[in-house]
């Protein structure tokens, strides 16, 4: 165990929540399908994961952070935003604010780390995900590193659909347009 996650205020009980995800046109997966990601903040290829955002803007900012070339082409984008209704059956780790993170030994700024090298950038967060798993956590609620002000938050769920979380379906919602300033760029 790398981090101290004993404080019960760090954990949220099971809940039903609406979350958001960007999906490409004609994608070969469903909006509520997890996958074994080998990249990303809380995944290293060893666990099933689905990255969801609390708001549509946050979901889009995450996608545009990877692909900033589309910031000025948003009117012509073919990506869609889906709202997924999720029953989170297991408790989840909540480190969305500095105060929450302070309840653990985890440094808040590392939740939004921005190092150029991915293995350095995500090192602590991947260890936190391991600790969350080991503590029976079904996911992590954390600030979005794609938001320059860290106001948008994400919910990263672990495990396969039907395990510690259940999808209650999804609907497409309008895709917002966000300003260039609303997306934090890498190494900035």
């Amino acid at each position, binding site marked *: 165990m790398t981090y101290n996650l004993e404080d019960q205020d760090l954990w949220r009980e099971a809940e039903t929540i609406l979350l958001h995800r960007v999906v490409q046109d004609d994608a070969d997966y469903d909006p509520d399908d997890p*996958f074994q990601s080998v990249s990303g903040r809380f995944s290293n290829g060893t666990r099933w994961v689905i990255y969801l955002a609390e708001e549509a803007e946050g979901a889009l900012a995450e996608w545009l952070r*990877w*692909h900033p*070339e*589309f910031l000025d*082409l948003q009117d*012509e984008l073919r990506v869609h935003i889906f709202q997924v209704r999720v029953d989170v059956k297991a408790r989840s780790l909540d480190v969305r604010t500095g105060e929450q993170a302070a309840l653990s030994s985890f440094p808040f700024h590392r939740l939004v780390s921005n190092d150029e090298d991915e293995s350095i950038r995500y090192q602590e967060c991947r260890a936190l995900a391991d600790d969350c798993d080991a503590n029976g956590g079904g996911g992590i609620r954390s600030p979005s590193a794609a938001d320059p002000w860290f106001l948008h938050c994400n919910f990263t769920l672990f495990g396969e659909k039907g395990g510690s979380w259940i999808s209650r379906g999804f609907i497409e919602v309008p895709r917002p347009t966000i300003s260039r300033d609303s997306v934090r760029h*890498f190494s900035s």
Partner: protein
Amino acid sequence: MTVSDAKPRYGGARRGLPDWADVAGSTNPGVPLLPLELELSLLSDSTDADRAEIAVEAGVRKLENLLRSAQALDRMVSLSVLLAGLQGCSFDEAALLIGREPPILEKFVRGEATVPERVMNRVRRLDEVLRNLHKVLEPTATAKWLRTSIPSLGNESPLNAISKGNLRKVEELTRGYCAPVVHS
């Protein structure tokens, strides 16, 4: 003996069938093969083995020509489909992407020159780039995207990157467009 010498002796036209030598000699790849098969079955009744052999050889040659014509046509169609996907691009930009001078590309498009396999390989790779791109972007914005500088290409545009021999990087970039989003 040439094929044209042989024609009257087989008398396909006299029997009301299409003259098979003409059919096989056609450059139209849409011509059905059935008349040739019929004629060969007629020849099988003949006792003149030489005539049959000549006919078969000519048939094979013509079939090979047909195949080559079909292949050339297929390549031209593939190239044309790719060019159609490059919406908003100039012909010069398209030539840059294909890696050939505009006059050469024009010859390919007009069917005045066969698209070589090396070019076809590039056409197929560019086609995949466009297919992946069009999963996230309207085709009408293709030219804008091709001219946009992209951080992961070292702030080069895809057009420049490809023209400088970095098609592989652009392929990786556009495959990434189709991957499920992970949070950064």
